[in-house]
């Protein structure tokens, strides 16, 4: 959920409720004030009547206007107190109920007691209150609308440095060594964010550099002793008169040293691909790379009696690192040769959309997609490290190419889809 949406979700209901409550309060206050004003008028009227009665000792004339009515009724009760009340009267002419404010009080004229009743229409008051209510509601709607739009634009401009920083962080690539280009801002929160991002990326870069050096150095330090082991074995095997047992031991040591060396090299390669250390991308002629690779293994296939079928479209160009393209192709093809059976077949198909290499071989014992995992091997033979296909997968992942491994009609098929 966007911050603005979340903010609006809380802010707008609160604003509406607050404005509704305050407009209700406003309504009651205005209403009260207007009634109070009406009562004051009624009192003035009462005073005038009293004054008239006192002077003339007679009742004034009753009047019956729409906005003010005065009536007198004889009463025997002398205990009537002055009192205000509101009454609703149904007006037949206009077919609606009208509210009146009424004041009752006792007048004595000619020794007789009368209840004087002065009524004033509340219509005007109601109209004013209604008008005020409409204006208030309109103001509320207008205010919310303005707030909503203003928030939208204001927040967008306020968050600009944040989005800029976020974009920079997204673009941040350890292997490209580019420093973050963070925007200048006078907002403390964003300043702090930028500072933190800067120091964090700096630290990550340093750590990465250290790790990279460590990986390379470790690989260096391992390869040198391995070179010594292998070379000494080679010299040792030159000696005459070795017994069969000795030959066997020498061979085993040599094989183990080779495996160890290939293992570290493959793992280093995987780490390098994952760290995006193969940066240079160019338009690689994949058709050429594949043909070259097939040519390289041509005699090998002839020796193993493997028949190769090529359906390769010429001049297929793919945007990627050339070394990685070569590694990708040779790993897939070597895999097809290595896990083939004598007298088997390999089919290599390349078109604009995909590369598919299928080969004969024994049916897979484990799920084919698992074979992309590191050290997962179908056969427990020591011939294979189980890293070839994970290198293929890692390269494909780097470029976002989907890669699948299926077993169909007795054929192992590896398919890379170029997107």
């Amino acid at each position, binding site marked *: 959920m966007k911050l603005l949406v979340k903010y609006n979700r809380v802010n707008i209901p609160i604003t509406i409720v607050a404005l509704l409550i305050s407009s209700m309060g406003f309504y009651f206050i205005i209403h009260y004030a207007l009634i109070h004003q009406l009562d004051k008028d009624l009192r003035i009227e009462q005073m005038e009547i009293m004054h008239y009665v006192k002077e003339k000792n007679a009742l004034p004339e009753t009047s019956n206007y729409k906005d003010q009515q005065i009536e007198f009724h004889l009463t025997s009760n002398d205990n009537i107190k002055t009192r205000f009340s509101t009454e609703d009267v149904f007006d037949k002419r206009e077919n609606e109920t009208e509210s009146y404010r009424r004041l009752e009080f006792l007048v004595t004229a000619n020794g007789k007691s009368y209840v004087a009743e002065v009524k004033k229409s509340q219509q005007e008051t109601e109209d004013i209150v209604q008008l005020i209510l409409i204006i208030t509601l309109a103001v509320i709607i207008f205010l919310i609308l303005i707030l909503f739009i203003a928030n939208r634009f204001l927040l967008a401009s306020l968050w600009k440095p944040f989005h800029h920083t976020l974009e920079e962080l997204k673009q941040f690539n350890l292997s490209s060594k580019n420093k973050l280009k963070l925007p200048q801002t006078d907002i403390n929160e964003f300043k702090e964010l930028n500072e933190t991002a800067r120091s964090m990326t700096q630290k990550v870069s340093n750590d990465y550099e250290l790790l990279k050096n460590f990986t*390379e150095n470790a*690989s*260096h*330090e391992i*390869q*040198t002793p*391995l*070179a*010594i*082991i*292998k*070379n*000494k074995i*080679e*010299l040792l*095997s*030159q000696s005459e008169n070795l017994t*069969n047992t000795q*030959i*066997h031991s*020498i*061979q085993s040591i*040599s*094989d183990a*040293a*080779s*495996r160890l*060396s*290939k293992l570290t*090299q493959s793992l*280093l390669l995987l780490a390098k691909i994952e760290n995006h250390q*193969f940066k240079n991308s160019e338009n690689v002629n994949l058709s050429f790379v594949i043909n070259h690779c097939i040519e*390289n*293994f041509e*005699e*090998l296939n002839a*020796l*193993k009696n493997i028949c190769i079928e090529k359906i390769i479209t010429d001049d297929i160009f793919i945007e990627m690192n050339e*070394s990685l393209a070569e590694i990708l192709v*040779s790993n897939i093809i*070597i895999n097809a*040769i*290595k896990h083939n059976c004598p007298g088997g077949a390999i089919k290599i198909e390349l078109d604009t959309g995909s590369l598919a290499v299928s080969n004969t071989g024994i049916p897979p014992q484990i799920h084919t997609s698992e074979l992309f995992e590191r050290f997962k091997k179908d056969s427990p*033979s*020591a*011939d*294979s*490290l189980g890293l*070839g296909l994970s290198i293929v997968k890692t390269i494909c992942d780097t470029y976002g190419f989907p890669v699948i491994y299926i077993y169909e009609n007795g054929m192992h098929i590896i398919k890379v889809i170029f997107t």
Partner: protein
Amino acid sequence: MKILIIEDEKALSESIAMYLASQEYTCEIAGDYTTAIHKTEYNDYDCILLDITLPGGNGLKILERLKEDKKTDGVLIISAKNSLDDKIKGLNLGADDYLSKPFHLSELNARVAAIIRRKYFDGNSVLQFDNLRIDTQTRMVTIENNPVELTKKEYELLLYFVSNKRRLISKEAIAEHLWGSDMGGNFDFIYTHIKNLRKKLMDAGDADYIKSVYGMGYKFTGQ
């Protein structure tokens, strides 16, 4: 032929020297940067084996100085860092070849021989071994003037054998030399390959040059 081995790992430089000596090369060893600079300044070598990581300085600096002094010594970089950057940098600086550790001594020897052949191009582009004659420029192979028709890989294999004559070459070294990749631990397919080459050589002359050594590999010998 004089070779300088610049390598700080004593066990390694000794092995290299021992193997190369068997191929009639004279070897000198420099174990650190200063010795290497000193030796290259006062002597000329046919080929220099150069390790990049050295105590006291970077091996590439030695290469730079050699080129500054307009020396023509062949240079083969031996590096434990199988890194593309170093390789490109070294070759751009004028190194002749690049080999990453660990390597087979037979492979190293073949590379050194190739560098020296290129260096003395005019005089020495023909390799002679007993009756066998290889013209490395035209890639023509003859035995007693009978031409031998070889495929590309068979030619490479023969050249590899001749460069490492009378030494045992493991099947793994052959496989790596010809296909340069990890083909797994079973090199039985090499057998068929060797058999074909041997047959072609025997058809052209009557000598069987290739001896197989049980369980280990092959040896290229004269009669």
